[in-house]
């Protein structure tokens, strides 16, 4: 037997998915152990091995792959427990990361309501304080020409000073280094020779793109999280090796691919926030096998609601990523857009309006009905009052909910002041939060020129299945899917991910029909390809095992935001020139409407991108046999309960126990499917079918 293992460490649980070579999935969890995450990983593996009636050693010895989503990098950043980083930059620009493009240091990554609160929106503290920033005398200009050469004595002096300050990691960002990396290379050599193994992140390596503030931040964040992440991964690799695992483990990146441990130093910044992206990879996989090209992946937890978009089989890409308040980065990553709408979002009123969020009760004190000291009514409290959640059967009965307390809180804080009944207020809270979720999905689709009705909607994470049909219907979506493995969807995404090397390089070129342009264009891709192939080879992967994807970022001359277009044409020639404008203007008009493009306006190619994908070996997920004629569905019925929704009024919903539903079963709303890990609400007019993969697929009843 060969196993394929995915483990995703989350805030509360560490999830594990094991796929065997027949495509059978088993999954389990263990509590996360934030102080020593490897422990939680090993515990989860032990639990899963028990499900297979075997030992961890056996599973690991027979494992062909171990892919891991980790929060070590994210937590090091968010809790500010990363390395002590020094920054080396060009003289005159030592304050770039402190000034933070002025207001960007205050407003980036902060919800809009908060930025409108002028006085209370503080600036983010920079990761590298002024005392650990050193300027080097050197200057390169926009064409990559050296204005002032670098001076090795200056570099040595700066490195020595930073080492004397006790830094254990150094980030380097010189002006225009992405056009000429020689000066940064000199600094890397110097640190290599006198730095006693100090980590170094060069901006020309981690983010060779225009914009010194974002490029410097990317190098800094990488330098900040890399040492801790590398030591964690090494430790985990040793532990796994000691129990028989023979291969390099693979680490999930926020670009949707995995990387090898040898590349952590370069790609640490891309490991941040990779867990949610892994869920998107799983949605992409299911979209593919179920025949959906366009997929919306929605994940609602206690504090936030996140949406990812897969269009024509490919995840959308984030154009302006940031990793924390005031910290933009420029490493390619998959787009996941979130709002503060979760089960813990607080409902409140100022006497006129009913508002939900952005404040959240989070996990602690949590909703009022948890009885853990929460006093502000939340979305979860509304769900209890409406009858959607069963107070006695929450998460498999592991927790009792206090419905009376939830009612009292809604009465006191919302219904009373607004002169509504508790039930009306609770139904309003549910509708408002669901409308916000629909608005967010609308935003991420229509703003890219997509029509949400052309998408299938996946809902995972503990809270979304209770809302999915409501926001799906509001958007006119026809197919909604709650995956069987929704509770461990990110771990599944790890197993299903491919190994990816992503390279980009800003090399702004004015598009013109000249041999010079054609040569420069082909030269840029050739350089990228050489670098990609050399790194691929250094990772022990053969050139024949990968396929290359080329992309261009193009804009009208003068614009600031580019459209990414695929480049399938190979070497550019006079014959294929027209393809650049065609691809660009097609996307432009899809987004802004016919007539928005201006075919006489010159184009600029700003960035060249290349992805090398090594498809990993993984068996197709197996299907189970489907029940015929809905046979046995009644065995899953455990009763009925009253549910109130504004749109339908009072309903009597049939309650099904998911553990007793089998593939092939179909049921009609109003119904509630109670799972141990979540709850699915099927309103009137909708039906739910369990498919061969045991996914719950919900659609409108026709006619």
């Amino acid at each position: 037997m060969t196993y394929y293992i995915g483990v995703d460490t989350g805030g509360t649980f560490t999830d594990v998915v094991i796929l065997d070579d027949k495509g059978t999935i088993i999954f389990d969890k263990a509590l996360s152990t934030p102080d020593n995450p490897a422990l939680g990983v090993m515990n989860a593996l032990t639990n899963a091995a028990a499900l297979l009636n075997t030992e961890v050693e056996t599973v690991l010895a027979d494992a062909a792959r171990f892919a891991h989503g980790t929060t070590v990098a994210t937590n090091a950043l968010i809790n500010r427990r990363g390395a002590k980083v020094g920054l080396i930059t060009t003289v005159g620009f030592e304050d770039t990361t402190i000034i933070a493009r002025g207001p960007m240091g205050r407003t980036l990554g902060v919800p809009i309501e908060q930025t409108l609160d002028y006085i209370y929106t503080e600036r983010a503290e920079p990761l590298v304080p002024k005392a650990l920033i050193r300027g080097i005398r050197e200057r390169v200009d926009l064409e990559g020409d050296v204005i002032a050469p670098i001076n090795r004595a200056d570099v040595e002096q700066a490195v020595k000073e930073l080492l004397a300050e006790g830094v254990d990691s150094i980030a380097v960002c010189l002006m225009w280094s992405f056009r000429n990396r020689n000066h940064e290379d000199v600094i890397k050599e110097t640190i290599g020779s006198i730095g006693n193994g100090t980590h170094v992140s060069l901006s020309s390596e981690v983010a060779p793109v225009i914009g010194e503030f974002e490029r410097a931040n990317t190098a800094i964040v990488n330098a900040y999280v890399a040492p801790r992440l590398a030591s964690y991964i090494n430790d985990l690799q040793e532990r796994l090796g000691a129990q028989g695992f023979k291969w390099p483990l693979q680490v999930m990146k926020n670009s949707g691919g995995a990387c090898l441990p040898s590349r952590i130093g370069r790609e640490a910044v891309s490991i941040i926030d990779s867990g949610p992206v892994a869920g998107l990879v799983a949605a992409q996989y299911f979209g593919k096998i179920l025949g959906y090209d366009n997929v919306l992946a929605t994940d609602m937890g206690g504090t936030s609601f996140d949406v990812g978009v897969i269009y024509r089989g490919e995840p959308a890409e984030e154009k302006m990523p940031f990793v924390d308040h005031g910290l933009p980065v420029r490493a390619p990553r998959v787009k996941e857009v979130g709002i503060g709408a979760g089960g813990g979002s607080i409902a409140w009123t100022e006497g006129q309006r009913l508002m939900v969020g952005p404040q959240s009760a989070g996990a602690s004190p949590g909703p009022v009905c948890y009885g853990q000291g929460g006093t502000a009514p939340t979305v979860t409290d509304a769900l209890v009052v409406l009858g959607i959640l069963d107070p006695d059967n929450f998460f498999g009965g592991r927790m009792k909910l206090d419905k009376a307390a939830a009612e009292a809180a809604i009465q006191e804080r919302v219904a009373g002041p607004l002169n509504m009944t508790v039930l009306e207020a609770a139904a309003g809270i549910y509708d408002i939060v669901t409308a916000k979720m629909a608005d967010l999905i609308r935003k991420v689709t229509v703003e890219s020129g997509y029509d949400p009705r052309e998408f299938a909607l996946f809902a995972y994470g503990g809270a979304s299945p209770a809302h999915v049909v409501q926001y799906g219907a509001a958007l006119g979506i026809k197919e909604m899917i709650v995956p069987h493995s929704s509770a461990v969807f990110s771990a599944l995404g790890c197993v299903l991910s491919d190994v990816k090397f992503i390279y980009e390089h800003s090399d702004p070129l004015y598009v013109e029909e000249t041999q010079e342009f054609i040569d420069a264009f082909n030269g840029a891709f050739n350089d990228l390809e050489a670098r990609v192939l050399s790194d691929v080879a250094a990772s022990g992967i053969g050139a024949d095992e990968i396929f290359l994807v080329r992309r261009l970022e193009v804009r009208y001359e003068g614009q600031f935001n580019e459209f990414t277009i695929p480049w399938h044409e190979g070497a550019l020639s006079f014959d294929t020139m027209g393809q650049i404008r065609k691809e660009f203007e097609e996307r432009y008009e899809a987004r802004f409407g016919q007539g928005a493009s201006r075919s006489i306006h010159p184009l600029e190619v700003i960035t060249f991108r290349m992805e090398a994908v090594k498809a990993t070996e993984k068996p197709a997920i197996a299907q189970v046999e489907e029940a015929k004629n809905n046979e046995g569905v009644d065995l899953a019925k455990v009763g009925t309960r009253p549910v109130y929704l504004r749109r339908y009024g009072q309903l009597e919903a049939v309650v099904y126990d998911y553990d007793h539903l089998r593939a092939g079963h179909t049921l009609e709303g109003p119904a509630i499917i109670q799972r141990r890990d979540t709850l699915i609400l099927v309103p009137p007019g909708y039906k739910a079918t369990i498919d061969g993969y045991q996914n719950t697929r919900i659609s409108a009843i026709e006619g």
Partner: protein
Amino acid sequence: MIVDPITFEVVKHRLWQINDEQANAIRTMSVSPIVVEGNDFGTGLFTKDAEIISPGAYMLIHVTTMDTIIKNTMAIASEINDGDVFLTNDPFIGACHQNDVAVVSPFFYEGEHIMWVGNVMHYADVAGMDEGSFCINADNLYQEAPRYFLKIVDRGKFSNEVERTVVTNSRLPDMVALDVRAQVGAVHVARKRLHEVLEEHGVETVTAVAEQSIAWAERKLRERISELPDGEWKTQVYIDGDRVGSDRIVRICLRLEKKGDHLYFDYTGTDPQVAASINTTENVTNAGTTAPIQALLCRGEIDWNSSVKRVATVYVPEGSVLNCRPPAAVSVGVIVCSSLANAASMHVMSQMMSGSEKYRDLVCPSWANSINAVNIFGIGRRGKYVGNVLSDHRGGGAGARTFGDGFDHGGFALCPVSLMADVENQEWKLPVLYLYRKQLPDSGGPGKFRGGMTAVTAVMPHRTDRLMWKSQNTSGADQSNALGIGGGYPGAGSQASVVRNADTERILSTWDIPEYYEGFGGDLKHLSSKSDGFLESSDLYIYHAPGGGGVGDPFHRDPERVRVDVLKGAVTIEMARLAYGIVLAADLTVDVEGTRQERLRLVEKRKSEANVRDGDAVVASGNGTGDQPIRFVIEYVEQIGDDENGMVRCTECHHVYCSASEEARDHAAVRYSPLRKAGPWLAERWAGDSPNFHLVEYLCPSCGVVFDVLERLQAEALLLGEPKRELAATPQ
């Protein structure tokens, strides 16, 4: 129709998002750095009667002036049909200035006119006698860019003829062409989405939500205003230099009267319109004046919409610089008069809120009050004529707060997301080379809480022979307008300087970059606020935006905070001693005893140098009797007893200034000093000692605490009977 709170929230959120989508469309399509990075644009949704429903979160005054444009459109247009888009840049129709091109479009649903949709973008150049169209050399309207009122889309049909007219009148036609399409495209996007909302929720609900959101916001706003103390507050701000070659000083006077739930702003006393382009229209003044209501009072809690205009009345004398009449030129007015109207309003509102226990925390005296913008034009890559505004002026400091320092590089109060561009992006778009862009130490106004720091930038021509500059700095080359409050000092002024024939060959080849001005060699000249000229290949342009003003007496600042400021380069050791009375040991720890003595010495010095009016020197005991109510007026000043019989005293030593019907300032000890007392970056043209302005500190004659610091026009001082200070300096 009253919409229930749930439907209300659902529909309103949707409308907000539609408007935001309009904004994102503009940001993606525009080629103007001022729009994309400076966020100098606005998008709005309006009722059929031109009331603002949703103004977005970008340049606020663009939207709060668009309602006037829509009203004028209804009056002017011969016909208004479904699918029309009107375009205007006429300041006398409502545009902020000629560069700010507005498009407005009626939204019809099933044949019925339901709403208006619109957006405004700043175009990089729309003609006129000066490059960039801020006509700093104009003395009347007809020398400025042409003013249009056009129909760019007629019943859904885009007019190539109209586009041609607009594009052809620009020095940068390629940029303008894409911007026109961006505006029309954004309106198209918003209309499409509105159609979906109406299909889903119906006309009646959507229009009711729009009206209800304004009414509800108004009610909340009135509640807040009622909770503020009634009274009257005044301030003055100044423009130094109205056009190239003129250092004329123009004064803006603002009085705020608050009674019950209404705010009354009165600009009586403001100087008449001038034969230069700094004038502005009443519409723009209104928008600038009411903006702080949104920023300070609404916070993120009360929706921004037309409600603000219902709770405030703004009186602007006709024919003044703030409410000019043709043929007054107006192209620079938006960054001069409207910014200063905003600054003055922020200052009087902060004085008012200082007296409220509940709202004191929202006090903020200034927020980068001068816009030190410069247009650069020249021959760029591939021989193309290029030009644009550099973005470094968006790194100015915000005023301090009553509980914390001002934000370093806080940006503009009128647009909190107006970003500085990356230096590399600037160098990519314009033929310039940056020598430095860095924080400017001692640029935050001293105070118990320090004003925010600004940044300073040095650029020179690169890969081109020469560059033209056009500086349209608001003001601040003389006094700073970076107001403090409650004893806080003003921050840095707003200054541009040129170094001719610098030693660039040596500096570039070694990258041995001097700290500020000194060390570049050549000839340094500090410029007036409006200036233009050419930078030759060895000339440098160095400039900084204003800092933020301080809050509270700097001698009350926690010494530890000053030490940290010194360590992070916000305050120099020298200034730590002069402005804050902090003595640092060699290892940069605070010398506690030395500091105590230095502060005592400086307070005594203050008192000895201050003038006290006859009869005010007597230290009266002001402990009051029994349970008389005590009301906080402003930092270090409180009123004890009622308005009729009470008195005003010092919070620190209880010295009584005067009766409650009088003002503490009129009975305080007063010290006059050169502006440089507030910091090294004020009145740089006069080495810190302007012939026009001096610094006035109002202090308690008994304990010496400073409770107000002003920059005062010398001529006013003479009128007020204040002694004339001897001046040694002459302009450099």
